[in-house]
């Protein structure tokens, strides 16, 4: 498996799209930090960029890569190697490469400009987001044989997690603002990895003091150590569940 993983990773890291992605992240991050005189404001700008682009790139690139590897997967399957190993090697290769691109692009400027604890949690969250959306991509590319449909599903999932989900939660929050729904909202936001990451990072920043009552509710839950451990475990579940579902399907798939 390591041999497949090694060459898949080399193949992806040489891919022009991945290189462009890293360069783009670097450009955005460096310019965000050098345009703002206040590093905290820079962090917020970078955060918003990361929460939109990292999931999109990870899910799209991984979906397209898996579809383009169809014949290559067939070739590998014709050799004496377990299907689960092939799938794991592909996944690890893709996930590692996307994480590497993210760390090179956004991680370095974060480490230089932002406070260490903020930088580290942003790197951790961004890396996890990359892996999560690679896992989501594996799921959507195994659901249908049709490449266009698969890419469509990936984009829909990204739209849902990155944009729509937020709106839905806000909608519920305002519609039921007469009732004590704070706990429910906390639980709901755990259902989207993007929102979970956003909350985790925002709570580390000074701006969380300005988030008012909701901020206090979140701080009560996510600000504690248990909350931190719990939310990172939730994020890990977001990697494991889609990936294992996709692997079970892959083992029985007709290539």
């Amino acid at each position, binding site marked *: 498996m390591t041999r497949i993983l090694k*060459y898949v990773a080399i193949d992806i890291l040489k891919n022009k799209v991945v290189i462009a992605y890293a360069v783009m992240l670097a450009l955005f991050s460096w310019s965000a930090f050098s345009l703002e005189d206040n590093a905290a404001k820079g962090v917020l700008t970078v955060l918003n960029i990361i929460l939109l682009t990292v999931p999109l790139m990870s899910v799209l690139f991984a979906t397209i890569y898996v579809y383009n590897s169809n014949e290559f997967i067939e070739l590998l399957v*014709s050799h*004496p190697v377990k299907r689960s190993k092939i799938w794991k090697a592909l996944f690890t290769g893709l996930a590692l490469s996307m994480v590497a691109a993210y760390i090179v692009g956004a991680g370095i400027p974060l480490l230089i400009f932002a406070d260490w604890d903020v930088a580290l949690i942003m790197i951790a969250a961004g890396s996890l987001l990359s892996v999560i959306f690679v896992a989501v991509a594996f799921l959507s590319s195994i659901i249908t044989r049709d490449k266009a449909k698969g890419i469509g599903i990936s984009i829909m999932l990204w739209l849902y997690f990155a944009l729509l989900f937020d709106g839905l939660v806000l909608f519920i929050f305002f519609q039921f603002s007469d009732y004590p729904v704070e706990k429910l909202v906390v639980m709901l936001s755990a259902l989207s990895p993007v929102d979970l990451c956003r909350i985790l990072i925002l709570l580390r920043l000074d701006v969380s003091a300005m988030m008012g009552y909701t901020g206090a509710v979140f701080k009560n839950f996510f600000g504690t150590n248990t909350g931190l451990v719990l939310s990172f475990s939730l994020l890990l579940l977001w990697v494991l569940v889609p990936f294992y579902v996709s692997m079970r399907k892959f083992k029985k798939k*007709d290539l």
Partner: protein
Amino acid sequence: MIEVKNISKRFGKLKALDHLDLQLQKGECIALIGPNGCGKTTLIKCILGMVLPDEGEIIFDGKNIRNDDGYRRHIGYMPQIGRYPENMTIGHVLDMIKGIRNDSSLLDEDLYHRFEIAGMLDKRMRTLSGGTTQKVSAILAFLFSPKVLILDEPTAGLDPVAAEILKEKIISAKNEGRLILITSHLLSELEDIVSQVIFMQEGKLILHKDVTELKFVTGQNSIARSIIHLLKSES
């Protein structure tokens, strides 16, 4: 060597394989022919474990292949269209497959030398022509001296010189007592290689015969003519 027992496979409404029975013996070079969409590729993929049949079983060397990967170390497969990750070089691909096989026995690098691949190891797969990609696939199929060779349209896309080299290689493999399964549309290409013919139509086995017997029965002097003769007399 390979026994196909009553296998069926459906893709939605399409019946790709319909209760197919086959016995493939070693030392034979078998041409698998039939019109487009008759189930040739599905059959090959079933033998390779890529497609899981709905019914029936495939026995390889006395063992059922379901839930087993080990038997594939005895198979060399050359796909019809080889597509490899774009930025891998030929050297990477060869090294990766060798790593998967992890075979300590002597490698058969005859084709590697005769196709003169050594000078192109650093070339990326994306930059290769279709013919060169086919050469890489052929090298991989023969590299581990497998007992069974499954070749899907092996000479398509190869230049005449390379096609001739590959044909010689197939014939010598047959003489060494290996089982070779070839699909091709160009019957004339197969004329001097194959010893048996399997003809399929709509997922069913129409005939499985020795070439000499086939020619004798039909009174024709080439495989192509005998098949056409047979089909005409049946309809």
